[in-house]
């Protein structure tokens, strides 16, 4: 049976990771390639990179990072941040990424999803969505609204309706980020994850709020997601991927245990 995936997420700015890992040995913690190698060897099932480079001119730095990561690790990895066109997608995929992740640009122009799926296949296209809890209304019946620009701009789009639309447009996977839970380390937003996971036929990756292995257990069971994104809890050395997986395995969740 399919294993639940544990996916470390690395933010990269101008070719350097914004948060390092607390390594015991003297690895260059700011180097995304070294961090990718570390997580690959530690048993990560996949790795997500978010390019948060602000200036457009410096975006090519990321393509070089992607190329070097692809030469170093032999598991799937995805790249998101600043992908606005099919050409942006092509550059990242040709450099060696398995998947590209689109977020705000797809909200502004949903056809980007179908164009990407047609050009490269649905399995390449991850739809990242940032979601905030709001009061239920006629416009937002689920009580969860899509936000963009790092959570600063409300779009008036219902999260559940958007998830179903992106599936129809050809997205292969959804990375569901709760802005409310993000950075709290107090647990994923379970109700949101369960709502979306049960209503779409494509895999859902939970994002935002992981602090303990129990949080991950909860989102993979009660939250019904296929995968969990982790950041601070592994970057700061609080838990290793192996500790998380052995916790999950002991509680009956199937994870990949040999690598």
């Amino acid at each position, binding site marked *: *049976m*399919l*294993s639940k*995936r544990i996916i470390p997420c690395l933010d990269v700015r101008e070719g350097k990771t914004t948060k390092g890992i607390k390594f015991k040995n003297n690895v260059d913690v700011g180097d995304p390639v070294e961090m990718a190698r570390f997580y*690959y060897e530690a048993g990560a*099932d996949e790795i997500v990179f978010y390019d948060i480079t602000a200036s457009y001119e410096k975006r090519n730095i990321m393509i070089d990072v992607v190329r070097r990561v*692809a*030469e170093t690790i*032999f*598991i*799937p990895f995805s790249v998101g941040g600043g992908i606005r066109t099919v050409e942006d997608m092509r550059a990242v*995929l*040709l450099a*060696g990424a*398995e998947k590209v992740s689109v977020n705000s640009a797809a909200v502004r122009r949903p056809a980007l999803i179908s164009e990407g799926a047609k050009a*490269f*296949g*649905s*399995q390449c296209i991850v739809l990242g969505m940032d979601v905030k809890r709001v009061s239920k209304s006629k416009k937002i019946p689920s009580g969860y609204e899509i936000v963009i620009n790092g959570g600063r701009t409300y779009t008036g789009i219902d999260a559940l309706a958007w998830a179903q639309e992106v599936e129809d447009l050809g997205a*292969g*996977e959804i990375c569901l980020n709760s802005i409310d839970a993000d950075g709290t380390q107090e647990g994923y937003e379970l109700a949101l994850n369960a709502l979306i996971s049960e209503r779409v*036929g*494509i*895999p859902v990756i939970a994002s935002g709020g992981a602090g303990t292995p129990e949080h991950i257990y909860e989102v993979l069971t009660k939250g019904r997601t*296929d*995968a969990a994104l982790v950041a601070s809890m592994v970057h700061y050395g609080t838990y290793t991927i192996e500790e998380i997986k052995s916790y999950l395995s002991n509680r009956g969740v199937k994870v*990949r*245990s*040999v*690598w």
Partner: protein
Amino acid sequence: MIVIIDYKAGNLTSVARAVSHLGFRCEISQHIGKIALADRIIIPGVGAAGSAMSNLRMLGLDKAIRQAYAEGIPILGICLGSQIIMEVSEENQAGCLGLIPGFVQRFPNPLNTSEGDRLKVPHMGWNRIIRCRSHPILEGIDPKSEFYFVHAYFPKPEFQDSVIAITDYGISFPSAVGLKNLIAFQFHPEKSGRPGLKLLENFCTWDGGYAE
């Protein structure tokens, strides 16, 4: 020289990178002449069977692959490359290479676990393979190893002795098939970490011989 066949079916660089990482020389090519001189051949690919086969035929590569197979050159199919070696695919009703008797089918819809939970298609992520018979390509692989899959279709050989390994996902399906000097994986060894690299290494040193 190992030739990775380029028939415009997705990104082939990841297979080339993995093979190079293992220290073997390889080349991505769509030239019949290169394929005729290859020591071994890899048929990778993602995408749809119909367009893959029409590209192969247009480039004349279908004949080149059949020729190499007949000559005993070790051949490895990956993902779509494990499907187009069959006779025919349910996807686009495509006529395929016919190196292994049998066809390619889609996961049934709906697909459920034994507990009745609905399973998603495509089958995407890490899963085990359960070996049905011993094969040199599987040497040194821990039975608990998992491999990375992304697919909605799978090969279904007519004869059980062509099924080298199966995988469970609602149903049991063939995840490694082989006949003579041909071996093929439905999963992506180049994206499956160390056990995947070990399979590729086994292929790169395999003489194409296989006796049960």
